[in-house]
């Protein structure tokens, strides 16, 4: 049988897993791997920093549903991946990260560029492997993709010593995978599902709380069907945005710290929450002891550890969101067929009232460029059909509030870890995954500077993403907290005029557009969307604009700060 190197085997296995693109950065311990890649038709995107590789793989995974793959060398290459891996872990994104390692005999000797990367990432990966024998490679790679992409998805790291990549192995060598401890529960317990259907039908004031689990399991269509039958309003988490169309009258958009007031009030008034693929993060629940005081909770999640973690649950259902929701829809239909359709008129009237009474708002008449205005224009001019990536901070919240997400996998945002610098590389990955789509990074001036070198990755690879920079000259979200809770003492949050972003993107070969007047906003967005290159539009927005409404940390979500209270607008 023909022999190949470990490195060639890795590429062969990646091909077998259907990998089409890898985001990475070479170095001493992965030269053989990159040499094998040289002969392969797998596309490789050379980033400018390994964090960018992990985020790009993450963005690619979020928009395609496939497993994102990134590669880094040992030591600093591997440690540079860590933020991106942790980010994917917190948001349950399927990813396989491959790192080079020093040769087996050198492990544990503090060899040049050695880092105990499996030890470092253990708490932020679903699983990790250190490959000690070339014959383990086929099995490990197969297992890694299986673990990353099934159950509750997440990142898996494979650490491969240099000499394992140069050892020889039979081309067709195979070992069956063996994961005796890994059996995710997919099908929900039907008895519980029946109980849930009954409880939902009996509820006077039910609300659905839809999370990222709906998107990762592809349950959006079933959710829509169920809602149509059951007439229940839907609140989403940040990661759940797009799982239910926001232009539907039963959509209450996002709840939580910067959610809509009507979503938060709906939670507070509801007598039943049907939570699907969400984990009741503290940014959603606010003060936990006062969260949804009148509601019982049905919690559907593929990860049993999420159920009962933060809130008390009446009916737990462990299983895949799509499969459980399909069963639930059927059981619900059976139930109401026998017992009649529940009367939800009062509740739906109340929901309608709340939506009308507490809309999201901003000062539309201001002559300054309001960030909400920019986002609304982006929504209009893209017909709501773009993929929106965000950075972290106010920009992220404005994007979530004012862009209407109507399809799954169209919002790419760092929810759990809140990683500044995620948006730009994630947009690169998203555009590679969905070249047919307009991909926009709604950026902040602070965040983008954490990764601005990736502009080079985008331009050189002709990944024509559009960056809409909401430039307020501040680390705005932190400044907002300082304004509200620290007597306007803006300690270390002012970054006014620190760089000319237009020149910066031009230096990389992209196009920069500066927008300093409200009248120019629309034209600039149109222009940017029409240019066949990477474009950064630098919007000089109202510097001290705040994100409203806001739940102060430690407060119940029913108590929201609003612009009128604080600014008399």
């Amino acid at each position, binding site marked *: 049988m023909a022999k190949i190197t470990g490195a060639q085997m890795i590429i062969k296995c990646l091909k077998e897993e259907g990998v089409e693109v890898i985001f990475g950065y070479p170095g001493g311990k992965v030269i053989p791997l990159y040499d094998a890649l040289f002969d392969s038709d797998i596309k490789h995107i050379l980033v400018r920093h390994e964090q960018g590789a992990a985020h790009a793989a993450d963005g690619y995974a979020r928009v395609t549903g496939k497993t994102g793959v990134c590669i880094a060398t040992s030591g600093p290459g591997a440690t540079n991946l860590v933020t991106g891996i942790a980010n994917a872990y917190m948001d349950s994104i399927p990813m396989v990260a491959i790192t080079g390692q020093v040769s087996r005999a050198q492990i544990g000797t503090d060899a040049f560029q050695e880092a105990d990367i499996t*030890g470092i990432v253990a708490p932020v990966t679903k*699983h*990790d492997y*250190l490959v000690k024998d070339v014959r383990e490679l086929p099995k490990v790679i197969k297992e890694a993709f299986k*673990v990353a992409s099934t159950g509750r998805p997440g990142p898996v790291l494979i650490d491969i010593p240099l000499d394992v990549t140069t050892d020889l192995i039979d081309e067709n060598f195979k070992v069956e995978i063996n994961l*005796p401890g890994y059996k995710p529960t997919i099908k929900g317990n039907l008895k519980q599902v029946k109980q849930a259907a009954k409880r939902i039908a009996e509820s006077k004031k039910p609300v659905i709380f839809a999370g990222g689990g709906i998107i990762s399991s592809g349950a959006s269509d079933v959710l829509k069907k169920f809602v149509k039958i059951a007439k229940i309003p839907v609140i989403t988490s940040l990661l759940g945005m797009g799982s239910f169309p926001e232009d539907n009258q039963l959509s209450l958009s996002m709840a939580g710290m910067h959610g809509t007031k009507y979503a938060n009030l709906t939670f507070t008034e509801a007598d039943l929450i049907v939570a699907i693929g969400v984990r009741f993060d503290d940014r959603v629940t606010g003060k936990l002891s006062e969260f949804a005081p009148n509601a019982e909770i049905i919690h559907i999640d593929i990860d049993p*550890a999420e159920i009962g973690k933060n809130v008390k649950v009446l009916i737990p259902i462990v299983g895949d969101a799509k499969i459980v929701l399909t069963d639930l829809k059927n059981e619900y239909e059976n139930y109401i067929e026998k017992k009649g359709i529940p009367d939800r008129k009062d509740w739906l009237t109340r929901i309608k009232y709340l939506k009308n009474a507490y809309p999201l708002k901003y000062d539309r008449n201001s002559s300054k460029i309001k960030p909400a205005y920019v986002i609304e224009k982006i929504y209009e001019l893209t017909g709501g059909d773009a993929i929106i990536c965000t950075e972290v901070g106010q920009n992220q919240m404005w994007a979530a509030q004012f862009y209407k997400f109507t399809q799954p996998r169209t919002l790419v945002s760092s929810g759990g870890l809140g990683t500044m610098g995620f948006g730009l590389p994630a947009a690169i990955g998203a555009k590679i995954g969905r070249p047919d789509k307009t991909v926009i990074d709604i950026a902040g001036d602070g965040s983008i500077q954490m990764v601005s070198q990736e502009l080079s990755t985008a331009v050189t690879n002709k990944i024509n993403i559009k960056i809409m920079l909401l430039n307020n000259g501040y680390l705005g979200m932190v400044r907002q907290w300082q304004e509200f809770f620290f007597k306007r003492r803006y300690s270390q949050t002012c970054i006014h005029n620190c760089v000319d972003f237009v020149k910066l993107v031009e230096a990389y070969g992209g196009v920069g557009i500066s927008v300093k007047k409200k009248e120019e906003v629309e034209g600039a967005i149109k222009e940017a969307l029409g240019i066949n290159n990477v474009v950064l539009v630098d919007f000089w927005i109202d510097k001290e604009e705040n994100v409203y409404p806001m739940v102060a940390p430690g407060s119940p979500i029913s108590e929201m700060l609003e612009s009128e209270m604080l600014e008399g607008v």
Partner: protein
Amino acid sequence: MGHIISVLVENKAGVLAKISGLFSRRGFNIESLAVGPTDDEKISRITLEVNAEEHSIEQIIKQLYKLINVIKIQELNPSNIVERELVLIKLSADSKARPEILEIVNVFRANIVDVARKSLMVEITGNSTKVRALEDLLRPFGILELVRTGKIACSRGSKD
């Protein structure tokens, strides 16, 4: 509250570190730990004793299940188990003290496993109450060194 948790894992490098990491990141100290292969050498049993609130233990067990190499977890009910630890106690013991020590050791059905001119070594197996009682009685003679294994435990056969 002390909880005894018995975990079956794949016998592989790094598994123990991951398990102990789940405890340490929550600030829980592992009071006692014993690891060894089962009748199937590919599978090891880890027996842990931890002090933690009921709710935290539940959450930790769920998190333990998420580790890919963990096969099975049991929280053992202290009233229905056989629990053992083994302790070696090196005592300073001249010829005058020996008869009294021997008497105590006999009562506890412990063993003398080493005798030197100025010291003795006692071996005892039993549950922690028994071991502690012996330790207390021997302390006045002067304990030079005490080595204990982690606790192991096995649930009793069903009575029906």
